């Protein structure tokens, strides 16, 4: 077993007489995205602040690459923390500095780089985080989402090995929340840092997380993959996950993966053996290109619109859907035949191409410079299953049959001028 990057051994943190963390044990591994979930005020931020040395535990040991911080020399501690970056819940931007100055600050103060090199790095990071128009603006002149992106750009400017995100999506609307999570996942893959998140966004964080840590009643009650969390039996699930998932359904109209599976099981039990159902796997193929050219918000708009249209057409047949990967949806339609689904699929793609396309591009027109248009390919694969079939094998079968069923043509800005 690899040595954990960060390990807590019986860590206790108190504020006066109040114990916030009680003998917490956890391991965080290098190169992974680890998300700490828990209710508000349960001590998630305190946990994160102890990792970067902003708070010290009353009892217990924090180990960095297997070595206790308490036994390290001051230089070693500084070197360890220098590999980390922290994105604050409320951004903690310097309000008397412009976006450029905020992002450049760590380079200006901690490196000997020349002005030209700092300019190059800062402007590149600003472009990557889609803040090109806000370089000379102050944080108070930016929206909440843009401020988050400035904080993210500042956290990544020194190319850290470990990035700690304290509620990176707090105060954002559902579309932007997913855009920020997508952005974190994309940067994590691109730059290869270890990401440690504190988040409420269940189940959205499951898509980007390798490991989940559940903080409940002052202790870490679960450590494992999102899939392992599905089978975890603990009061934490009732109190935290179920309530957050109910909220998620209310906000997006889509079910979480876990709800999807439960619904599937219930539907199957209701039927007699031998009755069929269909599984459809949808995917948006050029999502990465959209992110690269138009940004995460634009990509999120496409996913959101797609989710709404899938639900509109297949929901009326008793179908239910979940988002499986960043660009993939699974829809299950009970009591259905392949031929019926193919007809509905035709209707869906026609409707989505006519109305959905206009809706998406109406939102994009402000963002799309001439010549930067990206067409979106919609892939779909259908497979039929029976109640005794493993749902995973039916999903895999549908995925293997995926093919392009339609394209959302980009509407250039000049068309709007006509």
């Amino acid at each position, binding site marked *: 077993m690899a040595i954990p990057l960060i390990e807590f051994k019986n860590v206790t943190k108190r504020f006066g007489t109040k114990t916030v963390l009680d003998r917490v044990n956890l391991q965080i591994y290098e190169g992974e995205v680890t998300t700490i979930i828990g209710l508000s005020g349960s001590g998630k931020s305190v946990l994160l*602040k102890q990792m*970067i*040395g*902003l708070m010290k535990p009353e009892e217990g040991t924090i180990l960095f690459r297997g070595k206790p911080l308490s036994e390290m020399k001051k230089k070693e501690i*500084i070197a360890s*923390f*220098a590999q*980390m*970056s*922290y994105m*604050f819940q*409320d951004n*903690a*931007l*310097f*309000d008397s500095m412009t976006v450029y100055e905020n992002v450049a*600050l*760590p380079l*200006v*103060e*901690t490196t000997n780089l020349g002005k030209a090199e700092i300019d190059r790095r800062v402007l590149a990071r600003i472009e990557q985080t889609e803040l090109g128009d806000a370089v000379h603006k102050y944080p108070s002149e930016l929206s909440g989402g843009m401020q988050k992106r400035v904080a993210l750009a*500042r956290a990544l400017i*020194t190319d850290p090995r470990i990035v700690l995100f304290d509620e990176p999506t707090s105060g954002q609307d559902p579309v932007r929340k997913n855009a920020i999570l997508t952005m974190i996942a994309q940067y994590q893959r691109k730059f290869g840092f270890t990401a440690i998140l504190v988040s409420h966004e269940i189940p959205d964080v499951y898509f980007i997380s390798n490991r989940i840590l559940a903080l409940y009643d002052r202790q870490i009650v679960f450590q494992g993959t999102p899939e392992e969390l599905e089978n975890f039996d603990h009061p934490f699930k009732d109190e935290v996950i179920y309530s957050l998932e109910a909220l998620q359904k209310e906000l997006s109209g889509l079910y979480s993966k876990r709800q999807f599976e439960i619904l599937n099981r219930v539907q199957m039990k209701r039927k007699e053996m031998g009755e069929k159902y269909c599984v459809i796997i949808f995917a948006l193929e050029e999502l990465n290109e959209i992110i690269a050219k138009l940004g995460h918000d634009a990509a999120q708009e496409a996913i959101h619109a797609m989710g709404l249209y899938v639900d509109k057409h297949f929901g009326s047949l008793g179908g239910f859907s979940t988002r499986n990967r960043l660009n993939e949806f699974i829809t299950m339609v009970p009591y259905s035949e392949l031929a019926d689904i193919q007809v509905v699929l035709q209707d869906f793609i026609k409707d989505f191409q006519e109305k959905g396309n206009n809706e998406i591009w109406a939102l994009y027109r402000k963002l799309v410079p001439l010549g930067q248009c990206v067409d979106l390919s919609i892939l779909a694969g259908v497979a039929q299953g029976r109640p005794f079939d493993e749902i995973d094998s039916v999903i895999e079968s549908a995925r293997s049959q995926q093919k392009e069923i339609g394209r959302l043509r980009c509407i250039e800005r000049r068309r709007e001028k006509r």
Partner: protein
Amino acid sequence: MAINETRQNRLENEKKQQEDILLLRPFTLIGRSVINGVNHLGAATIFLCLAITKIFGRKQLFKTLQQVYYIGARSMTIIMLVSLFTGMVLGLQSYHALVKFGAQGAVGSLVSLSLIMELGPVLTAIMITARAGSAIAAEIGIQRISEQIDALHTMQINPLQYLVSPKITAAFISFPLLTAVFDLVGIIGGYISGVILLGLNAGVYTHSVKAYVEISDITNGFTKAIVFALIVSTVCCYQGYFAHMRTDGRGAKAVGLATTSAVVISCVLILVSDYIVTSLLM
């Protein structure tokens, strides 16, 4: 019967204990305040020492110059205004007092010595406290409660080096310079009221300034200015830096209280230290 007696004894004991507590309360409060005061004094001293060790850190020059502009140059107008009227009032009062003894020729020396040795350093320090000290406490306090100082920690930037040291250095530079301006403009104010408005001989006024003011008087005045710079910059930065640890308020209220404390404590310490320094220099 026995139970009743025991209960009565217990009640009497409790009453006596409460009376004792009431009698001891003032001492408890005084003791607590003294312990608090000593704690803060110790913490502020360590804070100052740590900040001073970072004064010559890398890239400090530009930040220090910015603070000199903010604390020093931008305080110039108010310092000149206050010193002009202080000098004029001093000239007016001293003329009317000295004319009774036929010693109006000493107006120049009285005005200049009062300003250089006492009023210049003290009033300059108080004016800078009101103008820049309060702003320093509020600025650092807001940076503390909005986690900007924590953000500096996470970026491996020493907050004392980044925020506090340039302000302390700038105070060391600005206070004596502004005191010199105060003294000069104050003497001109005394000239306006004594010579131009009251008809005193100009030569007599300037001669009395030159004849009685010694270089030691000027260095004593500057010594005071440096001591006040140390006090004001430390108190204001310290109050802002630890605004989040106040027990009497949180958030914006804590910043407000920190700013008030910074101004009040600085002014009191200016006057107390003025007496101590004067008695040591005499």
